[in-house]
Structure formats: C-alpha cells, structure tokens
C-alpha cells in the first residue's frame, strides 16, 4: 500500500481487502513491522473503522477455526487418500464409520456362459456388449488363477472374484452417481452402504440392485439360468428387458422382485421367467438355540420365522392347540421342520418362497 494512500483509506471494505492488514490481524506473530500500530497512532480518527474491520476479520477467523477438522479426521482422511493414490483398488480395507453398517446378503447368479476362449476366463457376450456400451473409462479385473481374487472397488466395497471370472467398474464412483459393475463369472460382493448411491450388478440379462449389502454372484456355464440367493439384507432383481428397468434403477426403493434372507430367485434365459423360492439350505439370520417346552406351535413357528427371515404359512386355528417340546440347535432348517412336523403329525412343503405346513390339528 502506498504511503500517500493512507489518509484516504477510510473504509472497512478496503481495509479488509488489504493483505498487510489481514496479516497483521490474523498472523500477528509474522507481522514484520509496526505499520498498523503507527497508522493508528497517526490517524486516531480512523480507529473505529480499523476496529470494525479487525473484529470482522477476527470473527471470520474464529468461525473458520471453530469448524476445523479434528486431528483424527485430518489424519484419517489423508490415510484414505493415500490408500487410493497408488492402487488400482486392490488393497486392504480402511472402513469408514458409514460403511460398517453394511448388511449381509448372499446372492448367487448362475448365468449362461459361452466359452469364447478355452483355457482362459470365458467371457459372456452379454458382458462384452454391456461393457462396450459404458461411456466412462472402466477398470477390469480378471481372475485367471485357481483361487478367489480380492478386488476393492472405489467405494471400498469388496469383491471376491472367483476363478475364470471378470469384473468391470468405473475408476471412480462419483458421488451421487450410481455404482455399477459388470460381471462375467462368479463373485462374492460385500457392498458398503450408501443409501443414496445404489449398487448395481449387471450380469447377463439380470440387473441386481442393492443399497448396501454383501452377496455372491455366481455364473454357471452348464445351465442356462440365473440364481439369486440372499442370506441377509435385501436386494431387488429385475430383467434388463423389463420396460420399467430404467425407472426401477432410478428409484430409491427396491422394486422388481425383492428378495429377503434365504430366498432365491431363478431366472431362466429361455422363457424369461423369474421364479422365487427358498435356498437349498437356509442359514439363520440370527443364531440362536430353540428350546421349547410345551410351547404353542404358533410360537415355535414365529421364532423360526424370525431366526431365518422366512414366512411359515399354517392354519392358526387348526394348530392352536398343538404344543411342542423340543430342543433344536444345529440341524438345518428343513431338518428342524421335519422334526416339528413329526410332532404335530403333519408335513411341510415349500411353495414359492414360503414354507407351508399342513397338519390335522391337535385335540384339547
């Protein structure tokens, strides 16, 4: 600032813009000279203006400092950045708080495969067609080894890519955009939870949508079907050919066929039909021991329903008087059901994705 300009400098705006003034207020330690104290001594009538400017700067400064990150945030964010600086994203996992909430889902997709290259990872023509259509640059991981390959996606989701499989995905899942991956072969996904950024697996003719979850995707060259198996959590599945596919993708809700724990979906490429049923061996969502002593069957069924996340259908009135004493632990679900049915002289069958129990009922 020119010395002869001093006298005219009467307004707060100009003071605030003046770099030496800002330094003097904000970095008193490094302010080299006594310029501003001198200035104030020489122009006492400027004092109110200087005070105003000064307090504005100090208030802004205070506000900035108040909102500074904690040392922990400062370090953690840089660690996350470093983590991604040197990788194509196959790295160990640094989980943020937000990602710890991920649910667990097992989803198996058996997709018809066409072996284009014998000995090498076969590539589904669907896969190639899908990948070709993508406009952003994709990273591809191919597993030619006999062991599962761990792939960490840009959002820290984990994919266990099975032998003879490949997966493509964008280098960055830009915030706000969809997370989309293209699969040929088998993979287990452990998807970090981002409710606003649904995760999509494109495999063959099926689109699988999850909000944050983990699941298997398996493709089987021998059959012409897609099988989706859910362990815990929720996924929605719809056909790429579905006229509402675009809408269902965009929607925040899970639409299409929604699968809950222990349900599976079979998709046939031949007649484009989806069939919902139960997985071969349902796993409890909640591990617990079932010990019943003269317990009403309704209660027994409802605890099984809760533990496995499966609906059990039966005639409540008919079975109202049936009591059961049993201790059920490690048996598979279907074994448990068999035992229960033996007790009430009935039988069960799996209809759609539900268990239907039929029995004659018990006398008072």
């Amino acid at each position, binding site marked *: 600032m020119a010395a002869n300009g001093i006298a005219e400098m009467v307004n*707060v*705006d100009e003071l*605030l*813009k003046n*770099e030496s003034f*800002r330094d003097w207020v904000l970095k008193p330690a490094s302010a080299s000279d006594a310029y501003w104290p001198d200035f104030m001594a020489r122009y006492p009538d400027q004092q*109110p203006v200087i*005070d*105003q400017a*000064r*307090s*504005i*700067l*100090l*208030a*802004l*400064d*205070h*506000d*900035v*400092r*108040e*909102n*500074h*990150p904690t040392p922990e*945030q*400062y370090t953690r*964010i*840089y660690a*996350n*950045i470093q983590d*991604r*600086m040197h990788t194509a994203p196959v790295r160990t996992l640094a989980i*943020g*708080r*937000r990602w710890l909430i991920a649910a667990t889902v097992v989803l198996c997709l058996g997709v018809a495969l066409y072996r284009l290259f014998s000995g090498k990872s076969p590539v589904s023509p669907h896969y190639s067609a899908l990948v070709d259509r993508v406009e952003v640059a994709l990273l591809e991981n191919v597993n030619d080894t006999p062991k599962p390959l761990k792939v960490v996606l840009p959002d820290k989701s984990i994919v266990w890519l099975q032998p003879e499989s490949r997966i493509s995905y964008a*280098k*960055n899942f*830009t*915030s*706000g955009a969809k997370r989309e991956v293209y699969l040929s072969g088998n993979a287990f996904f452990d998807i970090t939870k981002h409710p*606003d950024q649904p995760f999509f697996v494109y495999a063959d003719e099926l689109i699988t949508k999850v909000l944050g979850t983990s699941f298997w995707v398996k493709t089987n060259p021998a059959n012409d079907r897609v099988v989706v198996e859910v362990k815990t959590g929720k996924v929605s599945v719809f056909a790429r050919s579905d006229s509402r596919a675009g809408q269902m993708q965009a929607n925040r809700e899970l639409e299409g066929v929604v699968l809950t724990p222990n349900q599976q979906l079979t998709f046939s490429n031949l007649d484009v039909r989806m069939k919902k049923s139960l997985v071969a061996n349902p796993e409890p969502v909640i591990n617990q021991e079932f010990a019943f002593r003269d317990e009403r069957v309704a209660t027994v069924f409802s605890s099984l329903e809760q533990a496995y996340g499966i609906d059990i259908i039966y005639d409540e009135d008919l079975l109202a008087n049936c009591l059961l004493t049993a201790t059920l632990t490690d048996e598979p679900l279907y074994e448990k059901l068999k035992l229960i049915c033996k007790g009430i002289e009935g039988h069960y069958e799996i209809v759609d994705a539900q268990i239907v129990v039929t029995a004659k009922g018990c006398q008072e």
Partner: protein
Amino acid sequence: MSYSKKTEDKVLWQAFKRGDETAFAELYKRYMGLLFSYGKKISGDEQAVEDGIQDLFIDLWQSRSRLGDVETARFYLFSSLRRKLIHTLRQDKLPADNLDHTEEWKLPVSPAHESALINAEIADFQTASLQDRLKQLPLRQYEVLMLYYYHGFSYTQISDMMSINEQSVRNLQHRGLQKLRQLITWAVVSLFLFNFL
C-alpha cells in the same frame, strides 16, 4: 524435495503435477483445514464434507497429469469442493436449490432469536458474541464475505465458484458487509478493549 510453509502454491502445484507426493501432502496440509471448515458451512453434513475432501484429493492425484497450470491452487480446490458438495446436496434433496437460487436463504435461526435481533436490544448485542452475529447472516452473504475477505478471492473467482454473475457477488458482499457492520457497531468498543488492553 521438502517444502516449507513459505513455498509458494504455484511451486507446490507444479511439483505435485510431476508426481511429487511431498508437494501433494503439503497442499493437503495447507488447505485441508480451510476446505473442511468452508465445506461444513456449505453442506452442514460433516460426513459429506469428509467424503468430498477425500474424493477431491484422490481425483486431484489421479488426474494430475491432465491438470493444467491453474491460476491458484486455492481457487481450484475451493471451487472443486464446492461443486462436489452442492452436487451431493442436490442428490440428498436438501435445500440445495435454496442455496443456489435464493439470495437470502438463512442459516437456521430460531424465531425467538430472530425477533430479538430485530428488536435490537443493546443488551442482547453486547452479550452475544460476534460469532453469533456472523451466523445471523444469510448463508450466501456469509459465503461471499468469507471467500472475499478471509480467503482473498476476487469477485470474478467467486462468481465462477458460485455460478452467479459478478454483480450478484458484489451485491451480496455489499449487503453482507452492511449488515455485519450494523450488527457489530454495538460491540466494537467492548471488543476493542478486550483485544487491546
């Protein structure tokens, strides 16, 4: 090569573009705190700010070879973070539209507090801290004041960052400063005493 606080941004930027991690780390060190603080004002969602800053620096590193010689690193960083956060806000359907299209969107103020301010009781002003008064400013006025006076951006840069024309920036700055001056007039004397005696 090592860098000190005195190293110019321009030097750091060029070194970082060549793949110098130390320079990159120094840029982070220099701007992380300011960006975080600014981001929190824009977004209010701390997690979104963390994510935004993380993405920002990762993008920066990954695209370093394609980056030009930016006018100032500071401007590049602030405007990129702002873009990211506004984008996220839009996705979340938070009042981002207000943020971008309404001049006078206010930070949440309780009605009681507001009317107290309108009544402008001297006692109220004297007890409330200046920081509280800052928070009475409409967000966009506040943002312009912060960018202009504290971070030292030009009208042109701010108009770029906020996607509004320069005249609007000037208006916001002018009105913001007016308002702030009104608000602090009452407190100046006591603040002055506190600072100087």
